[in-house]
């Protein structure tokens, strides 16, 4: 590339002796070990501290599994903690996950499939709209959503937290769009549709029997990332005054930080499982595509 031509002429064809290369490789290995160890330590120390924090009472210094027992038995009386708020939050977050994923799929999948086949211009418009929430911070969206939700809860729906799903679909849209777009680009949708249409299949049949089975991996990964986002959402719920898992964790943290830290760790573990599954799915997608 931009190597000085004079030096290049002088030493052309004379590669570095193998000893030098070996030294470089060893240096690289040391560098790699140091950087990765430090980075991973920084990432793991807070997680390990969370675990220790839940089993050792910070004031008395006694070790006990009481916070975990309280979570798994659902009874926080031994710690003097009222866990009803936690179950309420967890329940509404899980329900929100389901409703958000369903709305997201119904809204995005048919639309993205049809514009992928028919209109490049509309597809770009949809990409632009769907990734727009990345540019509009959630805290800004809440300012605009406030009046809408005030009207919705007074005149149309109730103040039940499940109606947060409308805002959450917008929040998960960029991630879901990317997952589905990857799937659409990896298969030849156009040929599949034309082939099945020319064989006499109706549109719904094409959609449910041909396209969905070919896209299930990206549909699954779009759903997983949406679940991960919804479970971790705090901004919208807390500012609109609705209860969800994170709001409950925050409230519980004021009175019993051990239980809420334990619950945070569980939620994090669940996220790890979801995203590792996502990684496995995308690896499977890549290998199946290469295998074709």
């Amino acid at each position, binding site marked *: *590339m*931009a*190597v000085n031509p004079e*030096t*290049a002429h002088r*030493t*052309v064809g*004379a590669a570095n002796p193998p000893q030098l290369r070996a030294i470089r490789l060893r240096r*690289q290995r040391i*560098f*790699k070990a140091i*950087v*990765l160890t430090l*980075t991973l330590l920084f*990432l793991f*120390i807070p*997680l390990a*501290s*969370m675990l220790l*924090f839940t089993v050792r009472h910070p004031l008395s210094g006694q070790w006990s599994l009481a916070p975990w027992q309280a979570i798994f038995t659902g009874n926080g009386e031994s710690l003097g903690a009222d866990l009803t708020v936690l179950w309420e939050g967890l329940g509404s977050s899980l329900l929100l996950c389901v409703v958000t994923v369903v709305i997201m799929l119904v*809204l995005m999948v048919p*639309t993205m499939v*049809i514009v992928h086949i*028919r*209109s490049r211009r509309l597809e770009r418009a*949809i990409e632009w*709209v769907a990734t*727009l*929430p*990345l*540019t*509009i*911070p959630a*805290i*800004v*969206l809440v*300012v*605009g*959503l406030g009046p*809408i939700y005030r009207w919705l809860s007074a005149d149309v729906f109730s103040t039940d937290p499940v109606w947060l799903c409308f805002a959450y*679909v917008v929040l998960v*849209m960029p991630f879901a769009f990317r997952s589905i777009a990857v799937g659409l680009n990896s298969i*030849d949708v156009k040929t*599949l549709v034309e*082939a*099945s249409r020319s*064989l006499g299949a109706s549109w719904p049949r094409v959609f449910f029997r041909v396209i969905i089975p070919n896209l299930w991996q990206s549909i699954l990964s779009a759903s997983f990332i949406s679940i*991960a*986002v919804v479970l971790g959402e*705090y*901004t919208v719920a*807390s*500012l609109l005054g609705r209860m969800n898992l*994170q709001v409950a*964790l*925050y409230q519980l943290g004021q009175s019993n*930080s051990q239980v*809420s830290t334990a619950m945070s760790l569980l939620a994090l573990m669940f996220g*790890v499982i979801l*995203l590792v599954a996502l990684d496995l799915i995308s690896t499977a997608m890549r290998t199946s595509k290469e295998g074709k």
Partner: protein
Amino acid sequence: MSVALAQGRPAGKTAGPSATSFVAAHRKELGTVGVTVPFFAYTTCFLLVPTIIVVVGAFTGADGGFTLANFARLAEPNTIASFGTSITVSIISAVIGSVVGALASYSLVIGAKPDGLLRRMVSAISSVLAQFGGVMLAFAFIATIGINGVGTMLLQQLFGVTVDPNWLSSLSGLIVIYSYFQIPLMIIVFLPAVDSIRTEWREATESLGGNTFQYWTRVACPILAPRFISAFLLLFANAFSAYATAAALFSQRAILVPLMIQGAMRNEMDPNQQGFAQVLAFAMVVVVAIVMLLSHIIEKRAGRWQ
């Protein structure tokens, strides 16, 4: 699958060049637009309308008429200070995140197979931790170095060092906490860029007589620089729009712009606060939009290279 039989057919429009094909083509287009209506209707209601409410609210006075007076509040010392803090925290955490993240991604790539276990593990963990903001992250750091944190106690018992219990809610504490999700995000974003560097380039540099320094300054850095800058800008926008972590840490002090918005939203009935949340939100969108636009331009220029 019966579909495979027909795959040999050439792809393309099947309609013949007859008079009806024009109508048919039009019906097709109308059908396409028809299917997209629910998507656009939904995003209008829950994305476009909220944005319009913010923008209109920023220009609306207490009497409901058009005004620019709300923007005067952006010049108040409080507001300027919180914008300053927000931008400082975002820049420093983005610098730490992007440098450490880039070094980590480079370390993951050198001397390793592209689908090695360590690399896959680290990138899976990173994609979890990059999403790990908010209340749970605040708990993690309170458990580590808060008043009764595990780290605080260890430091005190082993070395007799007392950690300032308020360190977490100081500027440097906030930067460290933000770095916790910035570094993993950088790893995810930057790994593909480092992957695109080929070992042949290094060998070519060496066989042309270049040393390591020349390789980095003349070959690798010019190629990686645009991707690095656009990743840095993404990290900046990410930190700038983060709300939940700070909200969980500071319950009272509004030292960041998002926290100020929260305060303004809570006091919306106060006539003096009219339109203040909207103005702040509008200013935030402007900052993020500029950053994203810059990143888009740089990425486009980088795309020309590939």
